[in-house]
C-alpha cells in the first residue's frame, strides 16, 4: 500500500478498496501510479484513477497539464515509464498491446485527404473487423455527416473534420471512447447532437473520457471530473 496526495492506492489485489470504492479490476480502466517523462520533463506524475463503464469522465486542466498525454496513455499510444494501465482486467503493454475495444479522437482529426468521409471510416473499420458498412453510415449520420457526401476529406470544413473524428471514435460503439476537445469548431446545434449521442452511449454502458476547456459543457456531460495540473490529478 502507498499513499500519494491523499490518494490511497491498493490495486495489487482484486477487490481492494480505493477511496472507499471497492475495485473490481475486471471492469473499466484502472490507472495505477502512472508516470511518464518525455525528454526529461514530467508529463504524467503518479496518476491514479479508476474509471468505470457506463460513466462519462471529464478531464480538465490548463494547456500542457497532461490531459492529452493521459488520454494517449489510455489508448496505448504512450509507453509508461512506471505504473500500469489495466483495461478490463488486462494490463496495457503487458497482456495487450492496445485496448481491445476503443475509439479515440486525440488532438486534431487526421484522415486520408483523398478519400471521402465514408471511405476513410470504412478503411479504419476494416482494421478492427466486425464493423459493418451500415454501422459506418450510422456513425456518420449520428454526427450529422452525410454518408453519401462525395467530397473528399481535403475539402471538409474544420467542423466537418471534427465531426468525422468523432464519428471515427464512436464507430462500432467501442467499450471505451476517448475524446480530446470534441466540441472544438462545432456549431451549437451539432454540440447538442454530439452531447445527446454521448449520453446515449453512456447509458449503453460505454466508458467515455472527455477533455474539454469549456467548463459548462464538461460539467453538463461528465459524471466525474478530474482536474489535472502538471501531470498530476488534483
Amino acid at each position, binding site marked *: 500500500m502507498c499513499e500519494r496526495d491523499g490518494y490511497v492506492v491498493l490495486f495489487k489485489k482484486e477487490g481492494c478498496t480505493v477511496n472507499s470504492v471497492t475495485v473490481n479490476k475486471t471492469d473499466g480502466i484502472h490507472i495505477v501510479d502512472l508516470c511518464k517523462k*518525455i525528454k526529461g520533463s514530467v508529463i504524467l506524475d503518479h496518476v491514479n484513477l479508476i474509471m468505470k463503464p457506463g460513466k462519462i469522465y471529464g478531464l480538465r486542466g490548463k494547456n500542457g497539464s497532461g490531459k492529452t498525454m493521459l488520454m*494517449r496513455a489510455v*489508448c*496505448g*499510444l*504512450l*509507453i509508461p515509464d512506471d505504473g500500469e494501465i489495466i483495461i478490463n482486467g488486462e494490463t496495457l*503493454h503487458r497482456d495487450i*498491446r*492496445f*485496448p481491445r475495444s*476503443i*475509439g*479515440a479522437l*486525440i*488532438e*486534431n482529426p*487526421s*484522415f*486520408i485527404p*483523398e478519400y471521402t468521409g465514408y471511405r476513410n471510416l470504412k*478503411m*479504419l473499420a*476494416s*482494421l*478492427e*473487423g466486425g464493423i459493418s458498412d451500415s454501422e459506418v453510415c450510422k456513425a456518420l449520420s449520428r454526427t450529422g455527416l452525410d454518408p453519401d457526401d462525395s467530397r473528399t476529406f481535403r475539402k471538409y470544413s474544420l467542423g466537418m473534420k471534427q465531426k468525422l473524428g468523432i464519428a*471515427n471514435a464512436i464507430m462500432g460503439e467501442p467499450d471505451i471512447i476517448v475524446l480530446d476537445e470534441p466540441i472544438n469548431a462545432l456549431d451549437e446545434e451539432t454540440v447538442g447532437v454530439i452531447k445527446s449521442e454521448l449520453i446515449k452511449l453512456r447509458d449503453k454502458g460505454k466508458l467515455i473520457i472527455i477533455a474539454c476547456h469549456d467548463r459548462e459543457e464538461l460539467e453538463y456531460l461528465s459524471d466525474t471530473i478530474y482536474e489535472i495540473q502538471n501531470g498530476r490529478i488534483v
Partner: protein
Amino acid sequence: MRTLKFEMNRAFHGKWLYISILLGTIIAALDLGLFRIVYGSDKGKVLIQAWLGTNYQFVYNSLFYVLMPLFACLPYAGTYFSDMDSGYDRNICVKTSRFSYMTSKCVASFASGFVAVSIPLLLDLYGAAGLYPDGKPDKLSFLTAGIIDSYLFPELFNGRPWIYILLFIFIDGMFAGLFAVMSVCISRWSRNRFSAVMFPFVVYVLTGVVLDGVSDGCWSVLQMVNPEQPSVTYMYQMVVVYMFTACVSVMVTWFYSRRRDVL
C-alpha cells in the same frame, strides 16, 4: 492480417502508384516509339533489341534505370512520414500494434515499389513483342548489349531472351521494393516526405558514381539492375548487396517498431 490488408488497400488505391506507373510507361513508350521510327519493321531486329531494358542506344534506358528508385518510392513509401506528420498513425495504432503497422507498411511499400517498376517494363515487353519477333540477337550487332560469358545469365540472353527479360524484370522489381522499404526506414529521421522519398535515389546515384570509379561498377546497384549490364556483375555481388541492404532495413524497422510512443 487486417493491418496488412489495410495497408495494401491504401497502397494500391493511391494516385501516386498510377502516376509512377504512368511516368515509367511514358519513358518505355518513347523508347519503343523511337526504336520503331528508326528501324521500322526491319526483319533483322528482334524483341530483345527493342525492349527498354536491353536497348541501350537511346537515352531512355539510362533515364528509366536512374529514376528507378523514385518510381519505386513515389507510390507509397512516403506515407509513413505523412502518417506520423499528420497524426494519422494514431488512428491506426489504437486499433493495431505498432509492430504490425510498421511491418505492414514495409510490405505494402515493397509491393507497390515492385509493381511500379515492373509494370512499365512488362508493358514495354508486351509492346515490343507485338512489333518484333522473338529470336536470338546478333552478337556482333551494335544494337545488342552483347552479354558475353562473363556477364550474368549469358546463356539466357543468347538462348532464351524471354526468360532473360522476365528474370531481370523480377530482379528490378525486387530492388525497387527494397528502395521503397529503405524510404520507409529513413522516414523516422526525415524532415519532410520529399526527403524520405528522395533518400534511396540519392544513395543509389551517389554509390553508383563512387563505385563506378572504385570497382568498375560491379558493386553498384545502378549497374546491377540494368539488364543491359554496363559492367560485369557476379551473382554473389548482387546477393550480398541485396541482403546487406535488406538486413539493415529490417533491423531499423524492427528497432522502431518496438515499444515506442506514438506522439
